[in-house]
């Protein structure tokens, strides 16, 4: 099996990432911290798209539900960060179930549309109850994970590594194999004796859990929760683009894509407003010319050797 060299390479990369604070400043670490959290959301999205075969256009519905649940419990009830995160994750799962149980009956663009509309509705609700949620401006949470950027960086890295390991473990386990079969051809999977709905729903819950947790971590890092950081459709688009760029059906590719997106946005910052344009153009070019994403380029090289 090819597993061991890959595994060693992954460990080396993670160690290098952990040692990064020795070499780079707080600003870069701050960017990477964000990239890691969004990376987890992208990975959770890839579990749904790449393995369960469902296009969720509204990953931020799950993220936002988790983030706002965590933030409000912290703000109003004064619960500890750990308890808030746990409840945020749970809230995302419940929200995800409410969305997915009816939506999974739909196919093709309809599933995508419902998930998209879910985001818009959540956004409207938050604005509507601006008195409690902080509305467009957002809500400052009393507690934060840490003040020191290095500690925050390590929290984010740890969170991403653990989430990535768990998601990969799930995706590449026998259950993940069943999940992939249901995503590829639901009729054949059910003829093999697999309850397609059960497996897809489970995947949706797992995806929701990690999205919700990531949303919670994100707001306790930023210290505020707002529509612009955890709900807005532009965030949803970024999450999807990151996963497609990195390479679908790989989980890890999603995290790589996320880091790339934030890195590219930063490098192009001198271009000002045009940076989003360039990033989108690069993403479009990758989709048109290398539909397999970054990881497929790596794999192709590996195959050629």
């Amino acid at each position, binding site marked *: 099996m090819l597993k061991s060299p890959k595994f060693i390479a992954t460990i080396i990369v993670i160690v290098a990432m952990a040692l990064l604070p020795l070499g780079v400043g707080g600003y870069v670490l701050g960017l990477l911290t964000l990239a890691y959290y969004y990376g987890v959301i992208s990975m959770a999205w890839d579990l749904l798209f790449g393995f369960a075969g469902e296009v969720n256009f509204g990953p931020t519905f799950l993220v936002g539900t988790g983030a706002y649940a965590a933030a409000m419990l912290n703000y109003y009830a004064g619960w500890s960060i750990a308890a808030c995160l746990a409840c945020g994750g749970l809230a995302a799962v419940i929200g995800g179930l409410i969305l997915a149980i009816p939506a999974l009956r739909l196919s093709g663009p309809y599933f995508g549309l419902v998930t998209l509309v879910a985001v818009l509705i959540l956004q409207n609700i938050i604005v509507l109850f601006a008195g409690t949620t902080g509305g467009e401006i957002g809500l400052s949470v009393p507690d934060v994970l840490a003040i020191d950027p290095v500690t925050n960086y390590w929290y984010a890295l740890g969170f991403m590594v653990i989430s990535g390991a768990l998601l990969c473990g799930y995706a590449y386990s026998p*259950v993940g194999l069943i999940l992939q079969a249901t995503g590829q051809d639901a009729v054949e999977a059910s*003829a093999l004796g697999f309850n397609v709905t059960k*497996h897809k729903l489970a995947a949706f819950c797992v995806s929701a859990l990690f999205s919700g947790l990531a949303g919670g971590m994100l707001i306790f890092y930023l210290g505020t929760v707002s529509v612009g950081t955890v709900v807005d459709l532009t965030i949803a688009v970024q999450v999807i683009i990151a996963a497609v760029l990195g390479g679908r059906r790989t989980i890890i590719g999603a995290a790589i894509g996320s880091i790339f997106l934030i890195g590219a946005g930063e490098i192009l910052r001198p271009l000002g407003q045009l940076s989003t344009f360039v990033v989108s153009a690069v993403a479009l070019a990758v989709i048109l010319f290398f539909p397999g994403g970054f990881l497929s380029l790596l794999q192709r090289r590996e195959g050629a050797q």
Partner: protein
Amino acid sequence: MSATSGERAVRAMLEVSGLTKRFGGLVAVKDIGFSINGGEILGLIGPNGSGKSTVMKCIMGIEKPNAGTVKLEGQDIAGWPAHRIARAGIGLVFQHARPLHRQTVLEHIILALLPDSLWLLTADRKVRAQAEQIAARVGLQDVMHRLPRTLPFADLRRLELAKAVARNPKVVLVDEPFAGLTVGEVADFSALIASFRAEGHAVLLVDHNVKGVAALVDRVLAMYLGEYVAEGTADEVMRNETVRRVYIGGKIETAARPPREDKDRTPLLDVRGLSVLYGKAQALEDVSIHVGEGEFVSVVGLNGAGKTTLFNAISGLVGSAAGTINWRGESLAGRTPAAIARGGIVQCPESRELFGDLSVRENLDLGGQHNPPAEARRQIDWLFGLFPILQERQGQAARTLSGGEQQMLAIARALMMHPKLLILDEPTLGLAPVILELLSKALTLLRQTTDITILLGEQNVTFALPHADRVYVLEHARIVWEGNPARFAEEAGAGYL
């Protein structure tokens, strides 16, 4: 793998009765019943659209039957979701499966061995060993670590069988077991399917015709247009009058026709050494046919022999792997299907491809759009003479027409284009005998009044032969016989069904 069939055969393992399935207004399956014992193979045969696949899907739970029972060892499973039916002991070998891209052959077999649980987070060593055994049994031992996309077609089919073996179902349903396989591979697969029987499984083979499965099956049930036609041994069914009428069209008659004097001229259409692949399945192999100006050529062959593929290759709808297609001495390579149609080769496909929501008149007008309006109007008038019913129905939406009327519309629409060569693919499919006579008369009239050239693809020999100047027999993707219709009965007719 010992055969202990004696005590098993007492009660039927699978018992289907009164099975009915409707799609909207269409009755796809009507009151079908049969039973299969353990250690028995039943062939369910019928041409395209006969409802045989729907029966299979109803048993598997992919479609929910509207009425009837499906009993597995006495328990009624009709209407259960597919995954429960699968767990209860029914397995289906798909004809066109879509394997996963990143999983090896062995992983596919492991998948079929897994229970339906959410908590299987680690792989079991035993399962792996079992999967390796199954791979060896179906002949995949050498390729089990390869990805499906690197495998030849026969191995992909083996993989589907392996999944069925892994599921170890009491009843195995096999959809078109031998489609796309070579003779040697057919023997391998027959042996594998026979081994299911030897182990006491009940097996249902679904196929187009008796011939393909005759050597393997214990009994055959024939269907046509959703209804039961005949049941018995393969020989009995092949001799059955109704079956012969459905397939061959009854007694073969040929009309004597003076030989045409076009021997030395360039043929209008000249197909040489044509091979077509569908993915990895060989759909046509080294096929050569030619059609002279004014000639009526019939290509006869059973469903799945490759007729439609041949016509689609001529029309440019599918690409060829090898060979040339010349039209009036010029190669058709690189022309779009639409350009080929405008160039004079007009196909009236098996699926008819009408514009269902447009009216009969609008369908015809679209066919006539390439010609000046006055000429199109003349052509319509002429066609209304040929098919008077279309004139009556000209304001009606095409999808509201009966099957026979739709076929007439499809032919008329093709004729609106003033084809030099008209390709008719299975025009008789699913039509009642009265309609066949009407169509037959129209073809005769067409031949007498115009100088049109026709290439007809048919399974119904009685329909195809009387008109033909020359006949090709297509079998298993190859041309196996060529000659004039008079010689067909003595030389090729016997082995046809």
